[in-house]
């Protein structure tokens, strides 16, 4: 079964001339790691946010785990889909443990299991629970904060994870190691990951398949290898060529 299905999905913002997302069709398989690649304003974040209804689509249908999302309560939908954003958005007045527990509470998890689950999640994102459980977000580095952001999104074991430029605000060195860890995290659990990025290397390194978007259109949706060897059009070709010199590009192969 497909984890996410986009069927003729469109979005046009008020007062905008063109579609932000223009008739996008795509099937994302269960357990797949898909990255959405495009420049800012190409509609990639809009497409992602329509998936958990932070933005409502205008036309077309989106199906998540076999259910048409418009038929679900948006709050309930978001509780069962992991969501990570670039700004991280940890709650500054709560400890690291409380930041994760808040989501468990929304999912009505039994309170006596909190500690075990929180510790497990922190370990999963390579943070020592004893060191971090009781600290506040402001005492953590950006990279550590985003690990907590990931742990919070993973709470409740969502089948689908949506990540909006999760490493966009993180320094280059930390970003590299976190990308690898994210890949490992995905391989361990085989959840469906959908990650938005404007970084070509990140998109090709992480994605089993890559959606290339421009001006609201989905130009190509294929494996990195196919996109490199057979770019769908001039735009994709230029994009691929612009990253030729990149070391990542070869690391993968």
């Amino acid at each position, binding site marked *: 079964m497909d984890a996410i299905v986009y069927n003729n999905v469109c979005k046009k913002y008020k007062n905008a001339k063109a579609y932000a997302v223009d008739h996008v069709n795509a099937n994302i398989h269960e357990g797949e790691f898909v990255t959405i690649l495009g420049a800012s304003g190409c509609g990639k974040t809009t497409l992602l946010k329509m998936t958990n209804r932070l933005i409502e689509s205008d036309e077309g249908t989106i199906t998540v785990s076999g259910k048409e999302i418009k038929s679900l309560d948006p709050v309930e939908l978001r509780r*069962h889909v992991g*969501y990570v954003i670039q700004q991280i958005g940890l709650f500054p007045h709560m400890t690291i443990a409380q930041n994760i527990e808040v989501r468990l509470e929304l999912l009505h998890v039994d309170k006596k299991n909190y500690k075990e689950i929180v510790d497990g999640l922190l370990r999963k994102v390579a943070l020592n629970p004893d060191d971090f459980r009781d600290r506040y977000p402001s005492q953590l580095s950006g990279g550590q904060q985003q690990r907590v952001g990931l742990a919070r999104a993973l709470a409740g074991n969502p089948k689908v994870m949506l990540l909006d430029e999760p490493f966009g605000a993180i320094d280059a060195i930390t970003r590299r190691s976190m990308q690898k860890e994210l890949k490992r995290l995905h391989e361990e659990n085989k959840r469906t990951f959908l990650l938005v990025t404007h970084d070509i290397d990140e998109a090709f390194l992480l994605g089993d398949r890559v959606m290339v978007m421009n001006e609201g259109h989905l130009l190509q949706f294929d494996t990195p290898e196919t996109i490199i060897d057979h770019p769908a059009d001039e735009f994709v070709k230029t994009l691929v060529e612009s990253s030729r010199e990149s070391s990542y590009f070869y690391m993968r192969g």
Partner: protein
Amino acid sequence: MWEYLQRRPEKILVPLIEHIELVVITLVISLVIASFLSLLALRFPKLQAVFDRLFTIIYSIPSLALFVLMIPVTGLGQTTAIIVLTLYNQYLLIKNFTTGINEVDPSIVEAAKGIGMDFFQILTKVQIPLAKRSLFAGIRLAVVSTIGIGTIAASINAGGLGTLLFDGLRTMNLNKIYWGVLLSAGLAIVMNGLLKVVENKC
């Protein structure tokens, strides 16, 4: 001064108690109404501009004029005073409440929404705790303003510390004036301090 207090304690203590009563009742009613209206303004952002305009106009009416304006409707006395003071407080409270909540970092609110909190959960678990300073600033402002404007309410027979001031002026009784000034200022400082303690406990 002390001698006056010892000779006629009721002349000073009764107005003080009346004043505290006026302030506490006004504050409780103001908070209930302002919380409700702020909630509406947050849920329906278009209302925010409406409330803002309405209560700015009311707030700009001088207090004595508004007291007098209300007399034909609700008569002389404490009720009129409470209504007027509550109206003034709406401006201070709603403005501080809504701006405080709206100023919470949007990415934190988006994260809260993204992990599946509904409107009230975002409000109570995230926005209110993070806007605490601004919320309490509004309440403290309302308290101090109520204590101050409340003295003028004596002119419409609402009692309170204003009676000391007005009577003192009329009869040139300096003792009354001193006590009136001292107690209204003292009350404002004490209430302000108490609210700071409550804020830190929250």
